[in-house]
């Protein structure tokens, strides 16, 4: 795959990819973008091995998820992910900002697999089959993670 082709594919996927990582990073946009950049480099290096058996976006999201997992294993206690959400609420005390604050705080408390399943299903409108391919787990497990994620979120979000 040429660099131009890769960039054109990435250009179409950059917003969903960054949003997915933003959800995984519980609202920490700078960290999400850093991980997205790492993921793109990894994907570019491995682009020769992309056979087109799955969609490009599925393949890219899988790499991004693995990058996120690697990063979270390396630097677990370092982040204060809720900070940005709090800043958002401080600068603009709208209802929307409050809801984002709640969302990010709640997402931060979820285990990684649940968080990823929730982000892909609700924020990226991915099918269970696609989520299964991205997270590398059976479809039944994805449904279980989604169910557990919803239950956990309900405990942390005031509706």
């Amino acid at each position: 795959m040429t660099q131009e082709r890769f960039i054109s594919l990435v250009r179409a996927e950059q917003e969903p990819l960054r949003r997915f990582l933003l959800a995984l990073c519980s609202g920490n946009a700078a960290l999400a973008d850093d991980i997205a950049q790492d993921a793109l480099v990894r994907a570019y290096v491995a682009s020769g091995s992309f056979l087109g058996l799955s969609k490009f976006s599925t393949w890219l999201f899988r790499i991004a998820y693995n990058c996120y997992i690697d990063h979270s294993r390396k630097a677990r206690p370092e982040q204060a992910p809720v900070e940005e959400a709090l800043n958002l609420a401080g600068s603009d005390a709208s209802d929307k900002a409050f809801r984002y604050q709640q969302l990010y705080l709640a997402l931060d408390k979820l285990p990684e697999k649940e968080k990823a399943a929730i982000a892909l299903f609700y924020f990226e409108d991915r099918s269970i089959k696609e989520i299964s391919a991205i997270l590398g787990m059976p479809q039944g497990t994805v449904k279980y993670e989604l169910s557990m994620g919803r239950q956990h979120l309900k405990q942390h979000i005031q509706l």
Partner: protein
Amino acid sequence: MKEIDDFLRENKPQVKDNPTFILEAQQRMEEVEGIRAEVERQHRHGRRALIIALAAGLSLGVLATAVAFLYPVDASTLSQGVGQSVLLFLETWRQYLLLPVALMGIALGLLLFSRKKV
């Protein structure tokens, strides 16, 4: 669960516009290309050096074998000295000289006709 479903669908995280995102990615890809080119260059360099070494070894081996078989010497007539020692060595081991020569030939052939993997 309906409420949480609705809440999540209505509050998708919003990414801020980052016009430099793709540019940064492109820059990193250029760096990757630079590293790839350097690795390829070193690989080519090493391959060339190996081919030259094997070709030189093969030529010398063929020469030594030819000398050993075409000009046999009588070991009892040889005196001391480096040149004499070499002749004595070739005379003693001449039946085995073809083995390393053949091995070098095979290695050279494999190296020349195998696909470059970088």
